[in-house]
């Protein structure tokens, strides 16, 4: 029952705005909110795993997100200019473009993640203040590199034709790309959950979150798992970056920093170290942001802060926090 309580509360939150708007608007907003939530979840999942396993608060996560977006942007631009894959009215080519962008972004992010973990984070394990400062320093450098390579201004992200526009389902306008984002988010969540609960690596990672020292005593080199989780978390952030760039149809060097704030709120709401908590937190943040942005536009950011404060008051360790 205690585990179900947060889910029930979220469900109630889903339905509350129906009282203030007509059903069609509600569905449109819900789809947008779910998509936004799923994209934030991609960022928050990596953040929460990295924190849960290694006790590292990674402020550079947002910068990796931006890098992913820019790498994806470059690939998409290249493919579109060379062969017109985004503009072509062909579903396979469009999907291929999205897949290629995501793949490139994730590969780069894995490299970046390993580099970050080895060079920046490893020397300061176990020292929180150091970690926060050093990853912040890394953020400055990584973000400035983006500005140096791609220039400081906003750029337009090419969106494949298939994912533009909307479907008309029983008089309700459903934008296409958000649906793609939701599907992808669900797949990623299922993937992470299966990996964590059904594989040996997942078992060790979960045990490491629970008690890292014990895992070392049992003969597993936990640092290897640290690096892998860091790389995987970075890849998820990059995936989020590409998806967000298509969602908002633009890339900006500072986009990662803004997403990181949302991700922090989500991680706090969901509980540090819990993937399911992050998903729930992300959906809460995405949905409430969209509902409130429609009803009271200026209060949109405020509502997330309010929810975070409320949850901290009721459950100081977050919805699914381990409470350690």
């Amino acid at each position, binding site marked *: 029952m205690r585990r179900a309580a947060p889910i029930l509360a979220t469900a109630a939150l889903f339905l509350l705005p129906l009282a203030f708007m007509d059903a069609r608007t509600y569905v449109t907003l819900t789809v947008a909110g779910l998509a936004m939530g799923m994209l934030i979840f991609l960022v928050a999942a990596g953040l929460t795993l990295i924190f849960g396993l290694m006790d590292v608060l990674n402020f550079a996560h947002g910068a990796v997100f931006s890098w992913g977006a820019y790498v994806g942007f470059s690939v998409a631009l290249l493919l579109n200019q060379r062969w017109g894959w985004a503009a072509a009215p062909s579903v396979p080519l469009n999907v291929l473009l999205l897949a290629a962008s995501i793949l490139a972004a994730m590969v780069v992010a894995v490299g970046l993640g390993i580099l970050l973990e080895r060079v920046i984070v490893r020397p300061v394990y*176990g020292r929180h203040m150091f970690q*926060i400062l*050093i990853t912040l320093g890394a953020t400055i450098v990584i973000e400035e590199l983006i500005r140096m390579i791609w220039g400081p201004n906003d750029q337009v992200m090419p969106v494949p034709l298939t994912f533009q526009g909307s479907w008309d389902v029983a008089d309700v306008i459903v934008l296409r790309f958000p649906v793609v984002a939701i599907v992808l988010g669900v797949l990623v969540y299922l993937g992470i959950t299966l990996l964590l609960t059904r594989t040996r690596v997942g078992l060790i990672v979960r045990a490491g979150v629970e008690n890292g020292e014990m895992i070392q005593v049992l003969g597993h080199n936990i640092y290897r798992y640290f690096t892998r989780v860091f790389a995987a978390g970075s890849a998820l952030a990059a995936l989020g970056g590409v998806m967000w760039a298509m969602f908002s149809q633009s890339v900006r060097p500072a986009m990662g920093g803004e997403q990181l704030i949302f991700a922090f709120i989500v991680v706090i709401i969901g509980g540090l170290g819990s993937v399911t908590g992050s998903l729930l937190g992300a959906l809460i943040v995405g949905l409430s942001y969209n509902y409130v942005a429609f009803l009271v536009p200026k209060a949109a950011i405020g509502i997330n802060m309010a929810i975070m404060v409320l949850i901290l008051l009721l459950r100081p360790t977050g919805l699914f926090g381990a409470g350690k």
Partner: protein
Amino acid sequence: MSSDRLTPVQLARQAERGRRFRQPAPYLRLACLVLAALVPLVVPSFQVLDLAAKIAIFAALVASYDVVLGYTGIVSFGHAMFFGFGAYAVALSLGKFGAPTYAHLAAGFLAGVALSATIAVLIGAFSLRVKAIFFAMITLAFAEFALILAVQLTHITGGEDGLSPKLPGIFAVSYEGGRLLGIPVTGRLVTYYFILAICLALFLVMARFIHSPLGRTLQAIRDNELRAEALGFRTFVFQIASSSFGSVVATVLGGCYVMWVRYANPESVLGIHVMLDLLLMVIIGGIGTLYGGIIGATFLLTAQTLLPHLRTVAASVFAGSMIMQRMTERWLLYFGILFILMVFFFPKGVIGTVRDALARRAPSPVSSPPHPASPLRGEEKR
């Protein structure tokens, strides 16, 4: 209190008091102050005066951040927000209620301080009660929120354009107070000395704060939170006290900043760049040194003043190459690299490193208390 019944703490204090004026540090601080006071008399350039005033303000701001970061060991990303609260409170009070008077100025400062104290206690109560690491995330979120509010509430804050308040009486630009020692007394000059006096006063208050029993408790919490808790201190109350104190000092300095630049907009007083500058300054000067801010602020602000000149030079040298131009434009990148290198190799900053070097060269014969541990040293696992 008879001399044979002294506690170890009192003995240590006595030894410290005896050494106080035999070390170079107090004289160096005095020299900084005299230098700052002489600037308008010696150099008639406004640019230099402007730089000196900003250095004074930021040195004190960095010191107030150091109280939270270096002496209490909690990472806050909301310090610039409190600076911004002070700036906006004073700017609003002077600009929105008719002709500015001294009462408006004082009310602005008071309102800012009251607001900051309230919010700092609230944020602390939400986050420090759980885990100090939440503080970094929550303050960052709040700072972003404050920035968005300042941009969006255009009818109050002026949005992106910001506010340009006029100052009352002797602080006004138009004020002419004749000549003193051959120097024309202008509103600028009066404001400069007013700000310098406030910064000095704040430095004294902060030095008193960290050397008080409360300050010592904070350092104990920083070094070993579990042990401090076991000794019966309610650590989170002390942490809230420290972060609120630092925030209030930052608020006063925000007011001073607006008095000097006569302008407040979201980017200049609330933006993430203010926070980044602050972090760089505190790292360069030295965490947990209080006076490191003077060095950090002098270095960074001077560099930032000179950089545009450097850039025009670089632009003419590398006229052909786009990537070289971009590389010179992105000076923040080099500050970022400097920041990382400082954290890795000189985590105690300039002052801390110099102090360590001095302590190694001349080991004190008196059984002096061990040097305060680096705030960045061991932090017990959760």
